[in-house]
């Protein structure tokens, strides 16, 4: 009889940090293709062609930048083993903040002031949304995963309430949506044909990456966050205020997601339509995949963001079971993340086949 034995490796798998994420993506896509084929008859070839298209299409660039920012935000909180699954809600709050400034204040007469205020208020509101979950986790030890997820729905419905009620636009032709935000508050598109990326997106991405690198690699708080992720008891024993670290991680993470919400509104949405959760790209969930596949290494975040951005784009192109977009993207996220979670074991363990029974 042949037994299968899992044995710890003496050294981690060479190049495991690169091989395993790549292999997970390939296997995840294949698995998704099989599920699509069996459930809705979508030919796998069609899917693979669309994935290939996703890698070269210019529209992927926007998701690439957004996912880089969102992935970076998650790497910060995941480093401390704080699982912020609430970026969707934080993005929504950021969008709400930016829309308020653009639609209802006189700042739109001063474009650059308006844009900065939109981003600033989005940072605050997104951060606040993360902070609430942080406080509940830090002081009452309520798992942040359900709390952040439930807060996504609260944020969606809060913004939907505004869009249906007090914020409903005048010139909307019967649609339930806000008016367009004033042109002066739109972010400026890069002057390349077909590109849907703005100068502000690029600046925000660079700024957020630089901040994250400085915070995680150069500050005491960043080091403490890493220890929080691996050995919280040691941190407590060293007299560090663990509660404050948890709250900080979720607040920073939420603030960055909030800024992305502002960028989405001012960059391409330009108005909020009801129901807002069906009119946005749900990138807050997709970013979880980016953060995990980067193995929480900031330098790998843009690479993971590009690959996942391409898959996301492929999800939009594929129509299966008369569905496109979110459903297909969820399928990709699920299959890839599950494969990755299991495969990651093999960077530290190996599987051996042993002949003979007994122990």
């Amino acid at each position, binding site marked *: 009889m042949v*037994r*299968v*034995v*899992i*044995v*710890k490796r003496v050294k981690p798998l060479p190049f495991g940090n690169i091989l395993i994420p790549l292999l997970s993506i390939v296997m995840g896509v294949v698995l*998704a293709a099989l*599920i*699509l084929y069996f*459930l*809705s008859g979508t030919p796998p070839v069609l899917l693979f062609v669309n994935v290939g298209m996703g890698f070269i299409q210019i529209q992927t660039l926007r998701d690439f930048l957004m996912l880089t920012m969102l992935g970076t935000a998650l790497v910060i909180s995941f480093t401390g083993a704080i*699982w912020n*699954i609430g970026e969707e809600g934080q993005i929504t709050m950021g969008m709400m903040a930016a829309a308020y400034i653009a639609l209802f204040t006189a700042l739109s007469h001063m474009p650059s002031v308006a844009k900065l205020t939109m981003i600033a208020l989005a940072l605050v509101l997104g951060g606040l949304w993360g902070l609430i979950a942080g406080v*509940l986790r830090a002081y*009452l*030890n*309520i*798992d942040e*995963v*359900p*709390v952040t*997820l*439930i*807060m996504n*729905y*609260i944020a969606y*419905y*809060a913004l*939907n*309430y505004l869009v*249906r*009620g007090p914020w409903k636009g005048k010139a909307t032709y019967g649609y339930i949506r806000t008016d367009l935000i004033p042109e002066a508050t739109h972010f400026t598109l890069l002057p390349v044909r077909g590109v849907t990326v703005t100068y502000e997106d690029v600046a925000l991405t660079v700024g957020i990456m630089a901040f994250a690198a400085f915070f995680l690699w150069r500050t005491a708080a960043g080091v403490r966050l890493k220890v929080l992720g691996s050995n919280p008891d040691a941190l407590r024993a060293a007299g560090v205020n663990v509660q404050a670290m948890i709250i900080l991680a979720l607040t920073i993470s939420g603030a960055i997601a909030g800024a992305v919400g502002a960028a989405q509104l001012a960059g391409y949405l330009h108005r909020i339509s009801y129901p807002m*959760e*069906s009119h946005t790209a749900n990138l807050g*969930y997709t970013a*979880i995949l980016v953060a*995990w596949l980067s193995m929480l290494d900031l330098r790998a975040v843009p690479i993971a963001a590009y690959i996942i951005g391409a898959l996301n784009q492929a999800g939009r192109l594929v129509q*299966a*079971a*008369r*569905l496109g977009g*979110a*459903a*297909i*993207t*969820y*399928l*990709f*996220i*699920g*299959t890839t*993340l*599950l494969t*990755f*979670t*299991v495969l*990651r*074991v093999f960077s*530290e363990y190996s*599987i051996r086949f042993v002949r003979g029974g007994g122990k």
Partner: protein
Amino acid sequence: MITDVLVSGALATAPAFIAYYLTALGHGFFEKSGVLNLAIDGVFYLSVAVAYATAVYTHGPWGALAITMAVASVFGMLIAYLTTKFPVSHGAVGLSVMFLGYGIGALIGNPAVFAYRDLRSRGVMFDIRLPTEPVARALMYVTAVLAGLAILYLTGRTKLGAAVRAAGENPHAASALGVDVLRVRLIAGAIGYALIGAGATFFELAWLPTWQQLQGMGHGWLAFAISLSAGRHPLLTMVTSATFAGLLTYQYALQAAYNLSPEVAKMVPFIAAIVAMVLFMATPLRRRLAPPLSLGKVYFKEERTV
């Protein structure tokens, strides 16, 4: 007079009650075995879609109930197997399966909507709903209470229940005492998720018998909060489930009575879910009904057979 009102109120909330109660009950039982169950919302969503689709394809609700329970329990066993056999994060497995559930659920539910319309237009008439006349509603309460008592007995009074609790508190010690942790968690996953599947079926076929792309999404998290705020105790879970069932059934009545926006009304249960968790965790209840000691901890021994 007042009893009439209470009885009719209770009967009105019966489908929501049994849906949330069975889901929360199954979730709590599974977590007793030490597996952190973050997949609940995805598999709940998937089960809702499976229940709808099988009811459409089999022209009735009863086969759907059985099939949905079976499908959900396969997912429960998958989660139990992965988290027990491999040194992997329970959170990562749970969230992956959650997204998988969202994806597969939409792929199953959406074509069924068109199939249903097509059957209707060809004059094929059948009812996908579970019976909801007053007697059936009263029976829903009986079923829910019996299921709760069965789980209470199973957990507290049987050998399997003792093994489940041991696997949740300290799987290494349990294993040393001769408990097959993997087997026990597989059973807990199968039973727990069969209940979640049953809850989802009642949600879809007894309470809200239509399907659209967001159908049921988020309600798994409500069940998570219902179970957590009752300390995963089968009897206390009845109280929290009844509260939420009332809240969700009368959501629209509340909206009309207080002239609320529908969006605000939709928000209320989610805020209540957070409040319920806060109330539980901030009070001595938390110590009386503590979670299993090894909930969500990686259980792994070096060099073992698969």
